[in-house]
């Protein structure tokens, strides 16, 4: 609309400059990207939001790059159907820690058509449950099990829970059935949603620092478990037919199952024969290992690359086993 006389004269120079630059760029990028594929090529690993996942991902990246000469690209697609779709479309090759997202209906669709494949456990067992700070056990040793909570719920009273005790719920994206548990166990607790994990941590850690009572949804491995001394409250043992999804009807009154955390690869990567695939299949460590790295990153605020390097150098034997 402002295309009046003068502009037409000016355009060529701008255009020529841009065109020249573009040509220059194309030439150089072209040559730079053409040469690198010797043995391994590029592997795309998805990093999820929690610190443990960052630890897995960067250790794997370090080893793949330094030992196998792969080029590793990281994506940060959110877990569940979004990253399954990314694998189906060949945009993500591997994810190193899945908390049973594959068991949901949507997840099963991807498993069935083999666009997402489970390639074994990453060695870590995930535990979900109800946690309290250990200092509470001094005054209330009975809080070790859920029966001990009965009648004492008001210890956990907060401004939000009225006359009941407060139960702080977990991140909306995590597996949970606490409302059903509270109801079926007949506890006088009010389930208060605290929001995403960082928001929930803000809630319970403030109470912890004041040595006040708090009861909340939590899990392990988690780097904060190294900073805060937490105890899991024993819930009723699992029984056949116990339901873990609170949206489904049935009996929920049993503890959460333990999760073998799975490594996932895309169908495309699984059939690629890349040396990186062999590594991903063998990659396996422990909760303690992961916590060390996660704590370096999230607790000590080390850059993830540096944290991974530090761990790999200190654990040569374990790393070598992944490469055999």
């Amino acid at each position, binding site marked *: *609309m*402002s295309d*009046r*006389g*003068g502009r037409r*004269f*000016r355009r060529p*120079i*701008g255009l020529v*400059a841009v065109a*020249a*630059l*573009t040509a*220059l*760029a194309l030439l150089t*990028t072209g040559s730079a990207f053409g040469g690198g594929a010797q043995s391994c090529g590029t592997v795309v690993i998805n990093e999820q*939001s929690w*610190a443990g996942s960052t630890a897995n991902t960067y250790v794997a990246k370090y080893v793949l790059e330094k030992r196998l000469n792969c080029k590793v690209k990281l*994506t*940060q*697609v*959110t*877990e*569940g*159907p*979004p*990253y399954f*779709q*990314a694998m189906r479309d060949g*945009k*993500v090759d591997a994810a190193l820690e899945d908390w049973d*997202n594959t068991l*949901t*209906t*949507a*997840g099963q*669709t*991807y498993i069935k058509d083999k666009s997402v494949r489970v390639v074994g456990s990453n060695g870590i067992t995930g535990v979900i449950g109800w946690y309290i700070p250990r200092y509470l056990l001094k005054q209330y040793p009975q809080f070790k099990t859920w029966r001990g909570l009965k009648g004492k719920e008001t210890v956990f009273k907060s401004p*939000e829970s009225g006359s009941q005790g407060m139960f702080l719920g977990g991140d*909306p*994206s995590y*597996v949970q059935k606490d409302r059903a548990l509270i109801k079926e166990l007949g506890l006088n607790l009010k389930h*208060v*949603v*605290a*929001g*995403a*994990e*960082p*928001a*929930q941590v*803000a*809630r319970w*850690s*403030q*109470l912890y*620092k*004041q040595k006040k009572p708090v009861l909340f949804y939590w899990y392990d491995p988690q780097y904060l478990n190294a900073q805060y001394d937490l105890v899991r409250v024993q819930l009723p043992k699992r029984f056949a037919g116990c339901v873990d999804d609170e949206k489904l009807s049935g009996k929920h009154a049993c503890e959460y199952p333990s999760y073998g955390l799975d490594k996932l690869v895309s169908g495309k990567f699984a059939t690629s024969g890349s040396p990186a695939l062999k590594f991903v299949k063998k990659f396996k460590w422990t909760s303690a290992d992961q916590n060390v790295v996660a704590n370096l*990153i*999230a607790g000590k605020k080390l850059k993830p690359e540096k944290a991974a390097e530090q761990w790999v150098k200190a654990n040569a034997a374990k790393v070598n086993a992944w490469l055999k």
Partner: protein
Amino acid sequence: MASVAAAERVVVAPVVTHRPWWRGKLVQVASIVALMYVAYRIWALEYPWPNDLVWNTLSLHLDDFQIWLLTERGKEDQGLVFTVFEGFSTSIDRLVDWFTRLLLWMTWAGTTVAGVALVLRFGGLRVALLTLFAFASFALVGLWEESMQTLALMLLAVSLSLLVGIPLGIAAGRSQRVSRAITPVLDAMQIVPAFAYLLPVVILFSIGPAAAVVSTMIYAIPPAIRITALGIRGVPVNTVEAATSLGSTRGQLLRKVQLPLARRMILLGVNQTILFALSMVVIAGLIGGGGLGAVVTSGLYSNPALAILAGLVIVVMAMTLDRVTEAMADRTDPAKQHLDDSRRRRIRLQAAAAGTAVVVAIVLAKIFGAASVYPDEARGRTVTIEEWLLAKFQVVLDYIQDPFSFAFSITQPTGTFVFQQLLQPLQEFLVEMPWFVTVAGLTAIAFVISGLRPALTALLMLALIGFTGVWALAMDTLSQVLVATAIAAVIGVTLGVLAAESGAFSKAMRPVNDLLQTLPQLVYLIPFIYLVQVSVVPGIVAGALYAFPVTLRLVERGVRDVSPSSVEAASAFGASRLQTLVKVKLPLAGDAVMLGVNQAIVMVLAVVVIGGLVGSGGLGYEVAQGLVRGQFGQGVIASLAILALGIALDRVTQGTRSARREVLT
């Protein structure tokens, strides 16, 4: 920036003779609320929404739809539709990828010189310096690559949004029918939380830049359309008539009269589109947009100081883009161009010099290996700027996270008091009230304030919420939305009036507004939770802080647009500045004030999901849960309920004035 119609105002006598519209209505509304309260005292908790009136299987049907879509998308031979989507996403992916690589290949030095030269040529020295600061900060804080990814993504998303938005805006500006047809769609695009459509977008466009661009566009297109339409409609009627009577065709009318005259307004639309797009960076990061959004998300979980840093970089980028486009638009204003030969030659020389500088910078950077070394590392100092900043943020965070601090001893009791005395009673009032009383009451209020048709729409929307089975959750959310909107309205109107009265204050508020519209909310809300340990408060703060800038801008514009002759007349009669404001300007700007409140609701609803992520519960939590846990139906239903709530509240508050739909954000 945002504004109401700049339509010519009829000169109104300084003394407002008609009865203020709200005097009678306020009393009526108060009586309705009083009646509702009586009903609540008698029947609290006795009549929740009846289960017989719920479509229980809706969620399952929606889940089935998702699975169907997944299966279809996974088939070997895909239909034409999917092929089209795939072609689109592949080309966008390539484009963004190529552009990002170009920016990175040029290295921080080359890109900075190129950016500054480009801005210097088209925008002038001031914004060029701003650009220099922006690029330098991207490199200095160690987020260069992420910044370039986000920049490439956002430039494309904004361009595409404008490409779609401006023509549609022109169409809507020229035809009432088009306008009426697309307005509800625009409302939906702004209110339905991105979390609800991320999954379908991912299934259709896969993961990556294309999906990120599409989700960003859905949120950023509405302001482009609305403000453009407003600009076209704001062209004085007599000018249009004059042109028509001189024999202009519709095309000529558009090109020679409407577009040039609406130019400033359209540029305003460009600016708002930029801010809206940049507010989507974090969401885009969740589905493969990468860049700064991903840094914010993972930072929130493991390094909050880093999340703050990345959040601020997003704000710097948004403000720079905003100011640069504004300056460029100003420079290219045809009214200001008087080119003679010598100026033309000078400009050509400047362009050539700039081009050379860019090439030299790139070559030098390549020679010195700047591609892998960033200025923060090159110094060889023990503490880089990035580390220094992170340490400073950490100090603040440590103070905030200390429950024995002085701040905590004030914020926590205050938060608890507000919650127990204000929020909780309101929440219980709405959730426990018999459903038919709520429906009848809100419909009656809509009738009193806005008239019969809006009341019927509100009734329909409330019924829809109950029918989809989320009545209690929606009432919970409603209570929070009402409080957040009230806070936003009070702050927005007060500051808006101040900004209209004082140019200096208006200037000072602008960066604050931009910051609040583009800084990812979780970045400041998570620290806030440490200070106020009550779930629903952070969500309300998020809503109020996100919404009030819009109210402020609308009110400011409205008060400024009051016809100067009215103001002059008032002062001629000896009215003081305050009297003029209260008796003349505010009543005459009543439309804009009402519109400001009305838009505050839309904005508050747009961040309901953020509330869900910081403990608000209600519908926001359901939506957030739906995305990841594969409960698609649950997420969609909750999102539709948010939309229905938005439409109902809009109808309740829109008032009877006809100008009200001339909205922008």
